[in-house]
């Protein structure tokens, strides 16, 4: 990138700049004409110059010029108009000029804006492209937040400035000169006066503004550092909390904000001072015009029309001048920002630029030899991590690296993963230096995964396929026709090319199906994913994620039908294990004892309980039905006792407010209100209680579940009453409520419930020990059995699970899941050697054992028989490898 801002702008926007400049030049003609018109209007029709005799006329649109050497040339004599007609014609001409000037301004501004946006787009892309091409070592000195603030905010003004870089001085200079020239034509000395004041303005103000530039730079650097710190706090938030570092961070932010404040305040003070002086100077000139020009007019050395025209023309002068000065300020500011950013984005060891779309990927020979020859690796502090280390790994060999991370096994793995670079020696694949291979080949040679694989925000599927996204899709079909043939699309790509961005289509199919394994080709994606998920033992977890999902009717019939069939299969499966009571089904004529009273009344799902439940409960129909069934007094009594016991329990431990977390059906804020209600009422006093108290206690009663709370408040008579009321509710429910609740029906799929809830179609009986676990096992068992005969259902279910978002940095999933997804990402991509760097560290040993077995077994059965280099933390697994290399103190033993 050019270190000089103007050269950069000129290089990429030359044509457009020239085009805009031409438009500006043309726009000068109507601009000047608009100046002359007021004078003509005042002098000719209003004051009557040229109309001294009655019936006199003057030519309008008289196009005759006197050309040097040729004498007067007449193109058109003009129309002869009388005084009123001239007034009308000149006024209309004035209006036309105003409109024409406005249209020119519109065109110029739009074009400038577009030019600026293109340039901003180009430079932002260039910067991110550079980040992608930086060598790994560079990132040890970079704070993510600072870099992103440079790309995002700091260059923002560049877009605005680029459009003005050349055009603005031309336009404003032109305007100022035009106005000045006009004044000179009217009166030489008034012109000299205006020129003198303008010179003062142009010379002094920028000088005063220089200090502002320095402050501006400081403002930029401090703001960038603030962004960096904020990003650092967010990234390390767990460590901050673990060390109670919050206040220290607060102190740091406070001091930074103080510094930023003082810089910004200083800036304001100076800025407004300069503004004040600037205004003062430009207001002195009209003072001179009125005083001196007035004097000249009174003494008849200047006519009134001339003076009005001079003052009018002068009105146009300070504007352009001030803007020119502003432009100069913007120039210095942008130049400074640009240089500051660009110098941070230079690096000598940048990787190759991105390839063209559709470019064929090179391939490596099928069975290369990996050779580490006399390699020394040093840490940043100069410590020798790997010392003159040599190792040759023939294709297909499995090598365990042992000796612990401190010995150097992990360093060797990181070296092969190109995270560390050798300070001496070479790593070669098939004789090529690994560090000089283009990235596409280097990753083909070696697939690498570390202990904490990074997750990108997106779905699990995105994260697994991340290693396959190499094939840059064309934006056109093979025959050259656009892939999506719409006007918007063509405009989109034309602009992309104009901004110098590569024609990379994020919506295209990026998956390199040749790199996909174990089943290659476009049809192989799902089966391959299924296989690797099985290898890393993630498929059941993905299924569980899918089961928590809710699907709409638009998702097709395969899942709903498959799930409906499973309801009975699950019951049979449970009863075969003598666990028939583990799930209590929803029976229309039975009270479900594991479910709340409210849910038993409603007997259906709402899909959005937070919003819909209150709407149902508040509906007059609901209250009416409760009362008609005599349930209101019963529920009032239950609610009263429920509240009494609850308050007694929690009042007894008021000294330990932490235990309030186990109170789920009442918020701590509500407790005093309940106390008051209980004091005002008695358990059997529903009749005399206020509406508020009744609503409060009856709503509380809705939350009661006998087996959970065991307060003995619910007897069979009340249960029967609830079921009877349930029938009444459903029989007479008004339409608007019917739309909110989906009734439980054994033969119907519930779209407001998750897949899991649909399979269970009942409540888990928590009275059984380990109930959840057992239910989960049972559901997975019946599902896996169903998949054998219904692969389509499996694919849809897996698809649903894989579509779950992992959250930023994978925070929504567990560390174990992140590790497994990292492994899956590695295993689904074809490579000649697989390097696993302590990839299972910290996992339960039995799981580690299984995963090592699964992965080695899987890789062993791949057709190309890749090599495996695994830095182990647990040496007991080493015997499963064909070779063990123990590294201590950077040497092989």
């Amino acid at each position, binding site marked *: 990138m050019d270190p000089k801002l103007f050269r950069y702008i000129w290089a990429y926007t030359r044509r457009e700049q020239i085009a805009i400049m031409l438009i500006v030049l043309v726009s000068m003609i109507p601009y000047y004409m608009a100046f002359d018109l007021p004078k003509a209007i005042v002098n000719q029709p209003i004051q009557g110059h040229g109309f001294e005799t009655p019936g006199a006329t003057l030519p309008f649109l008289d196009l005759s010029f006197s050309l040097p050497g040729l004498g007067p040339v007449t193109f058109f004599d003009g129309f002869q108009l009388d005084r009123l007609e001239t007034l009308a014609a000149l006024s209309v001409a004035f209006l036309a000029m105003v409109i024409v000037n406005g249209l020119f301004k519109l065109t110029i501004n739009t074009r400038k804006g577009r030019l600026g946006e293109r340039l901003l787009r180009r430079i932002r892309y260039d910067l991110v492209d550079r980040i992608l091409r930086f060598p790994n070592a560079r990132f040890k000195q970079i704070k993510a937040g600072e870099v992103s603030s440079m790309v995002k905010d700091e260059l923002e003004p560049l877009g605005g400035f680029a459009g003005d870089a050349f055009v603005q001085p031309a336009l404003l200079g032109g305007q100022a000169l035009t106005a000045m020239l006009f004044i000179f034509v009217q009166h030489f000395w008034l012109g000299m006066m205006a020129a003198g004041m303008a010179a003062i303005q142009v010379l002094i103000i920028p000088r005063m503004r220089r200090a502002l530039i320095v402050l501006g730079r400081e403002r930029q650097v401090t703001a960038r550092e603030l962004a960096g710190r904020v990003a650092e706090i967010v990234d390390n938030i767990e460590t901050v909390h673990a060390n109670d570092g919050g206040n220290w961070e607060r102190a740091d932010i406070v001091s930074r904000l103080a510094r930023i404040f003082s810089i910004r305040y200083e800036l304001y003070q100076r800025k407004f001072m300069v503004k004040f002086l600037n205004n003062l100077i430009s207001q002195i000139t009209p003072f001179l015009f009125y005083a001196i020009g007035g004097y000249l007019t009174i003494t008849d050395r200047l006519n009134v029309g001339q003076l009005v025209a001079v003052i009018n023309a002068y009105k146009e002068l300070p504007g352009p001048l001030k803007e020119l000065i502003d432009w100069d300020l913007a120039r210095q500011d942008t130049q400074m920002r640009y240089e500051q950013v660009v110098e941070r984005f230079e690096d000598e060891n940048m990787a190759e630029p991105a390839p063209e779309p559709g470019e064929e990927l090179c391939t490596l020979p099928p069975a290369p030899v990996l050779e580490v020859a006399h390699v020394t690796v040093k840490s940043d502090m100069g410590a020798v991590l790997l010392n003159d280390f040599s190792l040759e790994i023939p294709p297909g060999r499995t090598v365990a690296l042992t000796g612990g991370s401190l010995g150097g096994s992990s360093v060797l793995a990181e070296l092969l993963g190109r995270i560390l670079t050798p300070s001496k020696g070479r790593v070669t694949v098939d004789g090529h230096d690994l560090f000089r291979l283009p990235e596409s080949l280097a990753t083909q040679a070696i697939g690498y995964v570390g202990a904490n694989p990074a997750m990108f925000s997106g779905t699990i599927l995105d994260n697994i396929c991340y290693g396959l996204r190499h094939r840059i899709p064309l934006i056109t079909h093979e025959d050259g026709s656009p892939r999506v043939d719409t006007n918007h699309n063509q405009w989109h790509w034309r602009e992309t090319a104009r901004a110098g961005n590569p024609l990379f289509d994020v919506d295209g199919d990026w998956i390199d199906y040749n790199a996909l394994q174990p089943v290659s080709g476009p049809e192989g994606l799902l089966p391959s994913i299924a296989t690797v998920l099985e290898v890393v033992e993630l498929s059941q977890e993905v299924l569980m994620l899918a089961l928590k999902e809710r699907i709409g009717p638009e998702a097709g019939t395969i899942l709903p039908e498959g799930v409906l069939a499973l309801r009975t299969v699950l019951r049979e499966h449970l009863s075969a294990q*003598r666990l028939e009571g583990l799930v209590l089904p929803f029976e229309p004529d039975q009270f479900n004892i594991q479910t709340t009273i409210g849910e038993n009344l409603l007997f259906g799902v709402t899909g959005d309980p937070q919003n819909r439940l209150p709407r149902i409960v508040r509906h007059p129909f609901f209250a009416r039905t409760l009362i008609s069934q005599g349930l209101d007094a019963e529920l009032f009594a239950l609610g009263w006792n429920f509240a009494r*016991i609850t308050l*007694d*329990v*929690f009042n*007894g*431990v008021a*000294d*330990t407010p*932490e*235990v309030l977390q*186990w109170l789920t059906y009442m918020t701590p804020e509500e407790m005093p209100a309940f106390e008051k209600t209980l004091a005002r009422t008695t358990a059997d006093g529903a009749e005399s209680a206020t509406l508020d108290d009744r609503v409060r206690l009856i709503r509380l009663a809705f939350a009661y579940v006998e*087996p*959970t*709370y*065991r*307060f*003995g408040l619910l007897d069979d008579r009340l249960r029967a009453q609830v079921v009877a009321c349930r029938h009444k509710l459903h029989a007479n429910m008004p339409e608007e409520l019917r739309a909110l609740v989906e009734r439980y029906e054994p033969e119907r799929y519930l779209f407001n419930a998750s897949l899991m809830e649909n399979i269970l179609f009942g409540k888990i009986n*928590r*009275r*059984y*020990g*380990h*109930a959840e676990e057992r239910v989960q096992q049972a559901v997975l068992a019946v599902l896996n059995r169903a998949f054998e005969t219904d692969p389509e259902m499996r694919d849809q279910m897996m698809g649903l699970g894989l579509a779950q978002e992992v959250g930023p940095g994978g925070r929504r999933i567990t560390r174990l899941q992140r590790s497994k997804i990292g492994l899956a990402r590695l295993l689904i991509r074809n490579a000649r050697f697989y390097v696993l760097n302590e990839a299972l560290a910290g996992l339960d040993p039995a799981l580690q054992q299984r995963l090592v077995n699964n992965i080695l077994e899987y890789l062993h059965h791949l057709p190309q028989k890749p090599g495996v280099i695994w830095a182990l933390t647990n040496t007991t697994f080493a015997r499963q490898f064909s070779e063990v290399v123990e590294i201590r103190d950077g040497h092989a033993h």
Partner: protein
Amino acid sequence: MLFRDEVELIGKLPLLSGVDPSRLRMLCFASDRETFAPGDVIFREGEANEGAYVILSGEVDVHKASDGSHVIKRGSEAGVAIVGQSSMIEDAPYAATVTARTEIEALRLNSRCFMKLMASCPKSSEKIMRALGAQLNANGVISPGAASDYFDQIRKAH
């Protein structure tokens, strides 16, 4: 069995006998009732601790792989038993495998709630410490009698 009966029953456990009833009530409130069929494993040695189980009725087998011991514990209305209490207090994995021998009614104590309640009441925790000390004595780990027996054995061996 209702909530108030549970409170009364767990109060009879040596471990919790010194804890005031309002805290026991809270502990019961936050704890879950669970049942197990004969042969069900309630928890396994080495598994992450999810709270101690108070056996309200039925018989369980407590097995330690380390010394191959089997101990049977029984709970009924007359007196309940507790398994997994030391793991709950230490917040350590379960130290034994407990299997149901009969139908079991149990109350799984909420260990986080237990810790919070004890932390806020020094008097209760002191009583729990005493109860634990007495129990260690009973198990012979630090009992003076056991120690002298041990020395006798060493003397005989020489």
